[in-house]
């Protein structure tokens, strides 16, 4: 066990799985970053350095740069997964997936069902997501609700290095298509990560902390925001539980409902847009299945229904903050029926 960054944890997961199974291959935008050039052949190792070093270890038949043609190479991942390989593709930003929705929504997600269960689709599509780097409206979105909407896809959004490694290994070993989204502001975030291979199962929320007064339900980088808020609330004798959803398709409804029953107060904190987002979805499930457990209306903490702005002050105002979470918790406590 040692302290590793989120980036190192992901790299280790890829390294271990490529060593374990020769059918695991990687291709995507600048996953080497240097093919055909006169300099270093893996100059980039992915836009965020996650695949750095894999080229020298596994060679150019196992990890390949692609042209910036998401439709072609995500489509190729679909075809490769149907015919014996286990491709892990990388798209720099989840925002770019708009140009290959067909390959994801209509091909990868549907093949098993349409063909009567006679096809496997062991592909993983990794992309960065999230705001906080002044990357503006087309490089900062938290688009996971769009994929969660589609039956046939699994959607993973890790919040810490330990989970990132275990969830990615689980994703690579899964026989269904997995959309694996990494918050770009988490890559340098460190935590304890075992050296060996291990899996974190899908559909099991992480319990970050337990407190009797309120449950904060969150995912990805917003889990950190919830932790900051919970630390502050503790000083005021408000004990918060934090659930880290980890995967939103499948979703751990059981744990959500269990904590709703235990605390009776829920705040859902989500970086996705408010309409049809994870916060809305989780809230609707609680209202439908555990209304009588609620001591007060659920509060959702999300960005506004607005594109992500560029200027740092606007971007910070866009993002849910720990203060927003604290305010929401206090409102839920005050609003007790």
């Amino acid at each position, binding site marked *: 066990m040692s302290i590793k960054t989120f980036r190192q944890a992901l790299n280790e997961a890829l390294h271990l799985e490529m060593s374990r199974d020769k*059918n695991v*291959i990687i291709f995507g935008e600048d996953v080497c970053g240097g093919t055909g050039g006169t300099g270093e052949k893996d100059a980039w190792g992915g836009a965020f350095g996650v695949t750095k070093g894999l080229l020298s270890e596994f060679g150019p038949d196992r990890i390949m740069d692609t042209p910036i*043609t998401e439709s072609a190479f995500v*489509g190729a991942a679909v*075809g490769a997964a149907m015919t014996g390989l286990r491709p892990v593709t990388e798209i720099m930003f989840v925002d770019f997936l708009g140009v290959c929705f067909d390959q994801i929504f209509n091909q990868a997600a549907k093949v098993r069902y349409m063909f*009567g269960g006679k096809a496997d689709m062991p592909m993983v599509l990794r992309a960065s997501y999230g705001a906080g780097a002044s990357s503006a409206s087309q490089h900062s979105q938290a688009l996971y609700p769009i994929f969660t909407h589609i039956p046939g896809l699994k959607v993973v959004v890790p919040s810490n290095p330990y989970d990132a490694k275990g969830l990615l290994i689980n994703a690579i070993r899964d026989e269904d298509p997995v959309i694996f989204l990494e918050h770009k502001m988490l890559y340098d975030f460190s935590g304890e990560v075992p050296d060996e291979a291990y899996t974190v199962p899908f559909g099991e929320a992480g319990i970050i902390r337990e407190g009797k007064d309120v449950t904060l339900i969150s995912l990805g980088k917003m889990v950190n925001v919830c932790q900051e808020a919970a630390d502050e609330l503790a000083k005021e004798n408000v004990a918060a539980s934090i659930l880290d959803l980890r995967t939103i398709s499948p979703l751990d409804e059981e744990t959500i409902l269990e904590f709703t029953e235990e605390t009776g107060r829920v705040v859902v904190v989500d970086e996705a847009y408010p309409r049809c987002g994870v916060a809305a979805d989780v809230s609707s499930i609680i209202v439908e299945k555990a209304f009588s457990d609620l001591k007060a209306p659920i509060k959702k903490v999300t960005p506004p229904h607005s594109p992500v702005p560029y200027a740092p002050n606007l971007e910070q105002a866009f993002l849910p903050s720990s203060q927003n979470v604290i305010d929401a918790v206090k409102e839920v406590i005050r609003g007790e029926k």
Partner: protein
Amino acid sequence: MQLSRDELLSAYQTMKTIRVFEDRVNQEMGSGDIPGAVHLYAGQEASAVGICSLLDSRDQIASTHRGHGHCIAKGCDVPGMMAEIFGKQNGLCLGKGGSMHIADLEKGMMGANGIVGGGPPMICGAALSAKILGTKGVAVAFAGDGAFNQGTTQEALNLASIWQLPVVFAIEDNGFAEATSSEYAVAGDIVKRAQAYNIASEKVDGLNFFEVHLAAKTAIERAREGLGPSLLQIKTERYYGHFSGDADTYRSDEEKNEMRQNKDCLKIFRNKVIGSSLLNEKQLNDIDDKVLELIDNAVKFAREGAEPNLEDLTKDVYLSY
């Protein structure tokens, strides 16, 4: 012509099976017992059979919304296909896919596809598998003149070329993308566009089985030897409208009559093999009888099939969830 008598008989039988299958599906549509729409392949048989008769179990094909012919040519079970189109439990995909999503991965048939241009990127992946796993397999993407304009197809041409993938792009140019003529909608020239990607390309008379077969043989061998992708622009004819309910008024009656009279790849095949004494009339007529019986039985199989079980509605969305 290097085809043996058995190969010729087999090619004719497969082409005839496609024709009779499609004519019969069209007829059964009238009964109201086929639930969805169908896009019929009749008229284009020489393309599917000219290519797929050269493929074996290592090889993969990706198909289109007009996929019945490709399925039959790649060896999919004909009664199972008919049952799938009828939406029955005994269909090839258990009634979950229907006409536009017939697939049989064990036969190397990666699926008809409801999205125009859906196949070419996918076939690059199948070719990548063949290359990395060393199967010596070849991957063929069938796509129409409409799909050729899609960005997906252009991106796939680029990827197949830079990765030197064992792919054959079979562009079936039947002159119409839905109701819009390729004369109007395709800028420039299909073969020249592919050549610009450094892909060996040629235009082929898709009404002539032997011409398709010859060109496909070269392209498939090129792929199998690791020499990269090829493209064939197969000039062909679509007998029916875009889909089963299409009144097809955008083509003149004169044009359609001329097509049925003089541009029938099956008639052309018959005339060639009989004219050169390779096969005789009786051999071909015997096949016609056999095919009629097969299709009759396929419809019977489909009609007698049970509806899918309601409890299977959410089965196979995932392997595990």
